[in-house]
């Protein structure tokens, strides 16, 4: 299936991520605005003329938290009061931001996690049932 025959949906987005290890967003052909999420309409100019756009998966940590009071899905993955995990807003190098779980950092020592640190997409630990984005230090 070629990229642009795929619908601009979450289903397509997660299929790209799981099957092809690609972070795919959309680009507006009318005004050039990028969206890291697969919107069928440009939020800047409201044009419906959008196309898939592959993001490099490189970015920087904009802000973060280390969560101890975990929801049940994360408790199942071994996180919680004794093993907090880091979630960040990531500035992608193309401009848009995404929310992502950050692995390869110590959620118990937030003072060692630095705003601005370079991050890279990691698809090796994707949970197929719950495919949120995962980044790690570059």
């Amino acid at each position: 299936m070629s990229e642009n025959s795929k619908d601009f949906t979450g289903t397509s987005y997660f299929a790209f991520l799981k099957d092809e290890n690609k972070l795919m967003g959309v680009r507006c052909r009318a005004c050039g605005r990028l969206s890291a999420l697969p919107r069928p309409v440009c939020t800047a100019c409201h044009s419906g003329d959008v196309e898939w756009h592959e993001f490099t998966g490189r970015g920087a940590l904009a802000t973060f938290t280390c969560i101890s009071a975990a929801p049940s899905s994360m408790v199942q993955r071994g996180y919680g009061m004794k093993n907090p995990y880091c979630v960040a807003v990531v500035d992608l190098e193309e401009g848009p931001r995404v929310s992502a779980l950050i692995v390869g950092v110590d959620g118990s020592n937030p003072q060692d996690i630095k705003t601005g640190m370079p991050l890279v997409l990691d698809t090796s630990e994707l949970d197929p049932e719950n495919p949120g984005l995962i980044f790690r230090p570059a």
Partner: protein
Amino acid sequence: MASITKKRQLGRQVSIVGAGMTSFGAFPDLASRDLFGAAFQDLLDNMDQGIDVEDIECGYLGNYSSDLFEGQGHTAPLMADWLGMTPTPVTRVENACASSGSALREGVMAIASGMYDIVLVGGVEKMTSLPTEEVTDVLATAADGLYEVPAGLTFPGIFGTITKAHMDRYETSLDHLLRVAIKNHRNGALNPKAQFNVTIMDLMERRKARAVERGQPEPGWRDEMDFLNDPRANPWIAWPLRLFDCAPISDGASCVLLVASELAGSFTEKPVHIAGTGQASGRPLHEAEELTSLSAAKIAAAQAYDMAGVTPKDIDVAEVHDCFTMAEIVASEDIGFFAPGEGSRAVDEGRTGLTGDRPINTSGGLKAKGHPVGASGVAQIIEIFHQLRGEAGPRQVPNPDLELGLTHNVGGTGGTCVVNILRRG
């Protein structure tokens, strides 16, 4: 966008003439219908000149998720039936934690349109029927379930990221957050309906006494800050937020009676008028323009100020959405009480305390009063109603010329923001 800045006016004026609410807390034996029934009875008992229930023409109920908390949907007509109000039309409004703030606006617009003269608006939430982890899951459904929640984000987590961004950008520290909690508990200690009707100092002393009773060594906490900086007393929830930075899980209900202002005199000699109202929608944090502010709150506030014809410095008292301590500081900046980044220092200087020049959350706020999410927006309105009528008892703002109050109610992480301005009649 012109649609944002367009000046709007109500078709006719609307007033609040009565209010009722339950205490907020954990009530294992009470379902939503019991809670809302108790709030409504409180309203009936406290009407200055009474109301015939059959004169109520319409109702709006704020409720976030009785479906997931209690397995009960279609909540509004159930409440109407329980209160003997059928066949009066009632509608549930769901906008996460801003559900009853939005319900209030629907009621205001129903009267302003000329369609109805007398409208009941309320909110209810029954949350403590689930264990904390499942409550966290239910609250997370107010975030983006496709692109935020699977990353592991929780509500405390999202406000944790906002806190970190505010700390990076301004001079906000963990101590500022703790001082918000201390202030709101001080106010909550003066509010008999508050879930935490106790100061943090008294909580600390109780913990010390309990340790001694159990034959354990007495903890050496010197003061409130020392207590709150002890991870055993105040564990991390979502760094940089700790337990005492978070509003509790609560059960409760609230309601107010709205009437066309020309009728207000037949219900009370002390009505409180809706001077301005605003509401806006916002984007998830990763799509937001700023990480340290809720754009929808700023827009809703601008709309409300514009309709009321007043500015932030004219507001005498405010109830803001402190689901987390950081959220109160951000709110105080978004409603224009303080410049961006100045909200933290204002807390340090005591300006937002009961006797400060910009009193915020005299009720104890969501933090100490409690946060049954669907009931919170109208409960904020009720606090301002009592303040403007001079009937807030020991937490009455000591200002004899109290005229204008503001409420700021947030759903999600700013997906919905509602700001209302009330004027003493």
